Structures are given as C-alpha cells and as structure tokens.
C-alpha cells in the first residue's frame, strides 16, 4: 500500500471514530432517537476490506452497525447524520434511521436490523450479478453472533452450491450484545465453521488495517475470479456498548484495556510516525480539521435540514402508479 493511501486511510478511520463519537453526543442531546450502534474500535474492518474492493462496481450490505460502511461506500456523511437526525435530507429520507441506511446509487444496499437477515440478501445480489455475467461482487459484513442464525447456514450452502460471487466478512467483536462468544457458540473460531460448506476462509487481525487489506485483497481476488464465495473472519472489539442502552457491565476491564492498546487508528498512526511518514503535528492538525468538518458541515447540515412532511407519511409503501396493477390485455 502506498504511503499516501495509508495516510488517507488513517484520515478516514479517524473521521469514522470522530463521527461515531459525535453520534454519541447527539444521542445524549436527544437529536438522535431509537437504537444507536457505534463502530468505534472496529474501523479497520470496514476500511481494510472496502479499500480492497471495487468502489465503482461492488455491492455492500450489512447489519444495523452500518454508519461507517455506508460512508466508506460513498454515502455523504452529512446525509448519514441527517438520517440519524430523522431529516428528509437523510440517505433514507428520514424513514430508515441509524439501522437502515441505504445509498443505492453507490450500491450500498442497506443496513438491516434482524440479526442474520442480510446473509441471503447478499447471496441474492450475487445471483443477480451472476445472471448478468458481471465482474462485480457482493460483500456482506455481519457480526460473529449472527453466525448462529439459520440464514448463515442456508446462505453459505446456496452460495457454494451455486458458486455465487459473494464475500462474507465476519466482524468478530467477541460479543452478541452481552453474551461472550464462548457462551453462545460451540466453535469459537468462526472461519472454521464454513469448512462444512467447503468454502475457503481466513482469520485475520481486524485491528490492523494493512493486514485486513491484504487478507481482503486475497479474498476478493478469489471471489471475483469466479471461484465462488469466501469467508473472512476479522478479530476485533467494539469500544462502546452494544448500543446506547448498554452498560457494558459484562466485560472485564482488563479485557477492555488490552483491546484499547490495539486501537486500529493509534496502531496505524504510530507506525506511520515511526517510519517517518507522518508527524505528530500533522496528525493533530488532521484531527482538528476533522472535528471542524464534523461540527461545521456534518452536524450543521443535519441540524438545518427539514423534517419529512407528515403529509407524505404514506409514500414508499407500494410502488407509485404501477401500470401492471390495473392489468389489461396486451
């Protein structure tokens, strides 16, 4: 990876962190409602994988922890924040909320709230690509606990059976809400579970964006070359609670301290500084710029945007004026 790209990734990940932490504040200020799941600590997963993907062609789908995947896949951060603020200018017009970001023009195919729901949807997108004989691929990010859903097994089976171009990325942050993985899951190494379907897989350090990028490059090459699905497990940790209502009481402080030493942003920053590719001053300036941008552009946009008109509450339930509803003889 070129130095310039590493620095850009550092900036993107720092932006992601500051964006999420600002969401936290906005939630406390009651500008964001509902459920809010933050990605702090896991930034290297989405950034490393999607850096290796084809930004102009590939499809991305994920769970409710979706802000950063959407932004990395081209969604305007102002419109993401506006969505969290339930505004008409939000990516989903204020109808979706934090868990349901969509930016279909950029092939960001959504955030979904049902654990395991996107597994078959991603396989379906891959089926469509296959029918069109496209070179693009479908990329699905989900958590570790999602792998205990039936859809995991059903989708892996079909993806392998029909050789679908889909990459499943497991962001293994060791918990499903408050249940630690070894208390919910018989086989703790997730990459091993897919061997039952004869799907190639790998486990990688999800805190090191360069390692993620490398592993994802290999995985994506496999999928894009027509060899069928691939499963990439990334070992990571979320620094916040599962959602805003989570006290985090179930995690040992020692465990948290251990993972905080493996902060993906600090790790990359320090490496760049050690190699003489970045100065502390540059980093501080970058951070200040990002904080300014979030306050003056992102938050300001969300604040100033209008809410949806209540008169339009009934739109988007069914297709508008679909001629086939009326039938007829052709």
């Amino acid at each position: 990876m070129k130095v310039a790209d590493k620095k850009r990734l550092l900036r993107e990940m720092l932006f992601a962190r500051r964006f999420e932490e600002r969401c936290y504040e906005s939630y406390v200020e009651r500008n964001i409602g509902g459920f809010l799941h933050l990605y702090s600590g896991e930034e290297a997963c989405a950034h490393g994988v999607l850096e290796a993907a084809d930004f102009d062609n590939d499809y991305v789908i994920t769970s409710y922890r979706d802000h950063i995947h959407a932004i990395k896949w081209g969604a305007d951060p102002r419109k993401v924040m506006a969505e969290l603020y339930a505004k008409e200018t939000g990516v989903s017009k204020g109808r979706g909320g934090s868990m349901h970001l969509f930016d279909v023009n950029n092939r960001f195919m959504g955030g979904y709230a049902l654990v395991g729901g996107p597994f078959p949807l991603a396989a379906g997108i891959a089926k469509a690509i296959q029918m069109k004989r496209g070179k693009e691929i479908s990329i699905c990010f989900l958590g570790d606990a999602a792998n205990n859903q039936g859809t995991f097994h059903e989708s892996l089976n079909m993806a392998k059976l029909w050789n679908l171009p889909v990459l499943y990325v497991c962001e293994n942050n060791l918990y499903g809400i408050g249940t630690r993985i070894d208390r919910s899951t018989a086989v703790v190494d997730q990459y091993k579970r897919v061997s039952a379907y004869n799907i190639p897989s790998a486990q990688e350090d999800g805190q090191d964006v360069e390692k993620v990028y490398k592993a994802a490059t290999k995985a994506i090459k496999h999928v894009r070359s027509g060899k069928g699905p691939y499963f990439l497990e990334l070992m990571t940790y979320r620094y916040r609670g599962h959602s805003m209502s989570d006290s985090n009481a179930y995690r040992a402080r020692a465990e948290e301290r251990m993972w905080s030493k493996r902060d993906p942003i600090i790790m990359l920053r320090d490496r760049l500084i050690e190699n003489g590719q970045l100065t502390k001053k540059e980093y501080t300036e970058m951070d200040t710029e990002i904080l300014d941008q979030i306050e003056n552009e992102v938050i300001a946009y969300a604040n100033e945007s209008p809410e949806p008109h209540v008169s339009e509450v009934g739109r988007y339930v069914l297709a508008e004026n679909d001629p086939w509803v009326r039938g007829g003889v052709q």
Partner: protein
Amino acid sequence: MAEIMFWEAVRRAHDEELANDPMVLVMGEDVGVVGGTYKATLGLYDKYGEDRVIDTPISENGFTGLGIGASFVGVRPIIEIMSVNFAWLAMDQIFNTAAKVRYMSGGQLEAPVVIRSPGGTAHQLGSQHSARMEKVFMGIAGLRVATPSNPRQAYGLLKSAVRCNDPVIIYEHELMYNMKGEVPEQEYFHPLEGSEIVRPGRDVTLFGYNISVHWCLQAADLLSSHHGIEAEVIDLYALSPLDRAGIRDSVTRTHRVVIVEEAEPMVGVGAEVMAIINEECFFELDAAPVRVSALNMPIPYNHSLEKAVLPDANDVVEAVRGMFGV
C-alpha cells in the same frame, strides 16, 4: 377461448414470463427436475435451464431472502413455497425485508418478487399441512396479496405479479389445480386490485375468494331454486389491498352480506370486510352482516372431523336463510 386446467394456466404464465424476460427466474423446492409439486413449472427446467428454473435446498427463509436480494438488482424471481404452511419459515424475509425495504430506504430499493404458494385445506393432510395463511399476509403493509378462484385468474394474476414492482403473494388452493376453466388465448394481465361480480343478484351479497367463491356460487343456486333468493356473488381475488369501493357498491345494491372464508374467523377476511362495511356503508345495511368461517381450531386428520371444521355451501345457505327468516 380454450379450457385448460388451473395448473396448466399457472404453468403457461411461468412459461411466457420466462420467455419474455431473461431476468425472470423461478425458484423453489422441486420446481426444476420434478416440475413442481402441482406441475406449475412442468417442463420449464428443460426449456430454460437450471440457472433460471432453480431447485432450491429446503431453506425457506434462505431462498426467499436470496430471491428478494436478487430482486434488488434487476432479477424478477417467482418464488414457489411448496406449501403455504412452510411460509412461516420464510416470514422473516417476507415481513422484515420484502414488505419494508421500499419504505425504510425512502423509496430507493424495491423488492419485485412474486411468492406463490399452494395452501388451504386439502383432503386429510393433517394440522401442519392445512394452513390458510391469507390473513397473515393481508396483515402486512407493503405486500400485495392475490388469490385466484379459477384458471383465468391464476394465469393473469401471476403475469401481472411478475411485472408489478411490489412484492406480491399469490395464494393458490391445493384442491383447485385440476379445475378446468377458460383462459384467453392472447396474453392477459389480470388486475391486482379490485373484485369481480361473478353472479349478479339483488337480495344479498356473498363475498368469497379462492375456493369459497365456489361455495358461494353453489349456495346462490340453491337459494335461488329453493327459496327464490337472488344472491350476488363477489370474488375478492385481491385480498390486499381489498376493494373498498367494490364492497361498498355491492352492499349498496343488496343491503345484506355474508362473507365466506375457508379460514378461522379470528382476524380474517370476514372481520376485515365487516370493518370496511362499517366504515363505508353501515347505513345501507338491512341486517347485521354474517361471516361463515372454519371453526377456530387446528385441522383434524379424520375425514368427518375435518369436514366439521370447514364451512361449505350448505353453511352459506343456512346463514342466508337465518338472515331472511326462511
């Protein structure tokens, strides 16, 4: 116009839609090599190949979700769920994804899938193969629900459903696949909304759908010949959205109503039609509406018990006689 069987009509719609658009596909358990449990896709595997007439694993939620995902990006899947009882397993993807994705994406995504499923109570299939699930689908905003009572509708509803950009549930009756009926020889698209007057009459309206339309027609003949009561029979082939105007107009003509459903009465078509009548035309009524439904219980295996749970034409006749005091 040619007379063909119900299953042939469904098969013809599949065939034409597969031929019309290379992005149409059919998927489900045993729809390929076998040609469908009720022959709805007979011969189409050989004609269109295994990539478009797809035998799926027994993974209802998985393959339904896969079809929905494919429909996000240009594919037009016709998903067959082998028996409507198994649709419960796919309810997550139907309810949480197909029905809601247009709304929660602010209109950016749509899920133009057709989900076809045979259901109803056939002969002695037992409690777990006798579900009548129309009420469940009707209760989900964001879906269209259609149910054919004859081969013409079976053909035309499926054709329109494939072209329509909303997710459409088509609920077919297992006892009707061998029923014969006329289907236009030219291509025909049946409306996905509205209702049909299948028998005119001035004294009472019998609302039916799917198999109960036939019970209504039999009852109407009996009422006419034995009691001189002329019943109007309305076929509610579109269960969601329901034809409010059609319901109101008929009640305004006849002022008396019986709703006939194969399902249990709780939270069903009868309850819904009564609510619509209350809202639209309560003061047109000369008598309290009556619903003829199944008993509120699982379907037994024993033939006599099974018969006792389900309504039939005689129950409809009795309901009307009670209403007229004859």
